[in-house]
């Protein structure tokens, strides 16, 4: 079985007016199907990309995979363990949480502005009881910063002292701090300059090779996808319309929607 499996994933949002208003104005309930029976599987050590325009349900799926949101129906299993299993005790939940981490879209909102970088990075170690003792934690923070291409002295600084690209590196370091196996990247480069985008993507790639990470990449940027993903799923209005290996999707897209997406993107030349 694949490492990450999403089965019949559904999520509806209730956009109705409050009960009393609804009864008085005789309106029916208004439900939005953000994710509609989506199935996908990700093999260990590979990258799966979900692409689609705004409002296609990409981020909702990301939030369900990390457990920030509960699916309305369907299930997500990681290494055979069901994420929504209510019978797990706190310890088992923490053990599963440690294996799934996330890199967020906004480098400005994803780091607590009042915390020093060192504290941000050592927090997961404390939450998961990974490393005891302040000295050992500091050593691990230095190691993490080095892994994402930053220096040990940055641990004593606050997030506002860094550029967007550097903050995204810190965000990646925080995700790595709990030694996860799956990292969900929710548009990790969309807030960055193009030149910085490439650096961050290269970093993610080399980390994948070093630690055997599995990525779920959420993006609307097809150029990003073409360099990163092994397999691509195309989402349209909550429905997975097409799923193909990266090379195949770009060379022979099957669905009209995919063709439209590809033609809307700026042309990219492949050198390889």
């Amino acid at each position, binding site marked *: 079985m694949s490492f990450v499996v999403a089965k019949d994933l559904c999520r509806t949002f209730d956009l109705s007016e409050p009960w009393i208003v609804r009864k008085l104005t005789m309106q029916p309930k208004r439900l939005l199907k953000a994710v509609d029976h989506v199935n996908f599987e990700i093999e260990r050590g590979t990258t799966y990309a979900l692409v689609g325009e705004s409002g296609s349900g990409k981020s909702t799926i990301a939030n369900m995979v990390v457990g920030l949101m509960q699916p309305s129906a369907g299930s997500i299993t990681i290494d055979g363990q069901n994420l929504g299993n209510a019978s797990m005790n706190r310890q088992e939940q923490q053990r599963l949480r440690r294996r799934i981490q996330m890199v967020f879209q906004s480098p400005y*909102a994803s780091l607590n502005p009042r915390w020093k970088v060192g504290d941000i990075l050592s927090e997961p170690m404390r939450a998961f009881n990974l490393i005891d003792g302040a000295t050992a934690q500091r050593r691990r923070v230095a190691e993490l910063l080095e892994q994402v291409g930053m220096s040990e002295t940055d641990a004593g600084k606050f997030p506002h002292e860094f550029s967007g690209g550097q903050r995204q590196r810190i965000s990646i370091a925080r995700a790595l701090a709990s030694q996860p196996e799956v990292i969900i990247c929710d548009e990790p480069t969309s807030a960055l300059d193009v030149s910085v985008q490439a650096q961050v993507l290269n970093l993610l790639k080399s980390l994948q090779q070093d630690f055997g990470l599995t990525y779920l990449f959420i993006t609307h940027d097809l150029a990003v996808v073409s360099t990163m993903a092994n397999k691509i799923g195309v989402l349209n209005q909550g429905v997975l319309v097409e799923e193909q290996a990266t090379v195949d999707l770009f060379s022979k897209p099957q669905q009209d929607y995919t063709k439209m997406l590809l033609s809307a993107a700026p042309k990219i030349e492949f050198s390889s």
Partner: protein
Amino acid sequence: MHRFFDSDFFYAFRRSPIAIVSLIVVVFMVLSALLANFIAPTNPFDAASLNLMNGFTAPMEPNAFTGETFLLGTDDQGRDLFSAILFGLRVSLFVGLMAVGLAMVLGVLLGLIAGYVGGWLDTLIMRLADIQMTFPSILIAMLIFGVARGLLPAELREEMAITVLILSIGLSEWVNFARTVRGSTMVEKEKEYVAAARLIGLNRWQIMLRHILPNVLGPVLVIATITLALAIIAEATLSFLGVGAPRTEPSLGTLIRIGQDFLFSGEWWILLFPALTLLALALSVNLFGDWLRDTLNPRLR
């Protein structure tokens, strides 16, 4: 420290005469209240040292019987007004600060819970705040004061008067804190660093207190300063009405009440000097609070 003197904040402070003067007045008042024991020429609470013959001595004039002079005169008991004001200032400031502290802790906690947890708890807390806003806070304070005194045994009333005063003013001023904190909490909780904290399995309290609280405290400081002025005035009002600080431990409001009895018989100083002190204190705290709000509010810059 070096960072502070280079900051925009300090620059704005240096450029504002109002801020400088009001801060100096506040610091001066706080210091003289703290050091009242050393500055005051007499101890106004020591009944044995009072000489009734000294009663109603005008400022800077020798007393007709004893020949003693007093900087700001004496009251009907022969108490030196300057000393009484210093000790009264201490009571007023203590009650004000403690009441603001109570209101702040209560308001910030309730606001955090309302904003972060939401749902029916939010509705309950904020409707309670709305209801309280429809009453003048001095009325609420009097209500709480009256109920608390009714519940206390008679022999404890004098002793507990200051505590009850703090409680009643504190409980009547929490609403502004709660509203502001709730608003900023609702903004902060949608940010991704909160999602990151949830991902590593922190519980609600850890997220609220360790992650959100430091990010919503900015405006709280401003509200606390403005509320301090309100609390000092509320305390003076309650004491003036005779329901606040007892005669044995007079605050500025109590002194004003005592002075009021003699205003029309020509002893103007008993009322005037405590009233001027209260005015200077409340005005400078308020002006400093206003300046803080204007300086720290990014929308006004």
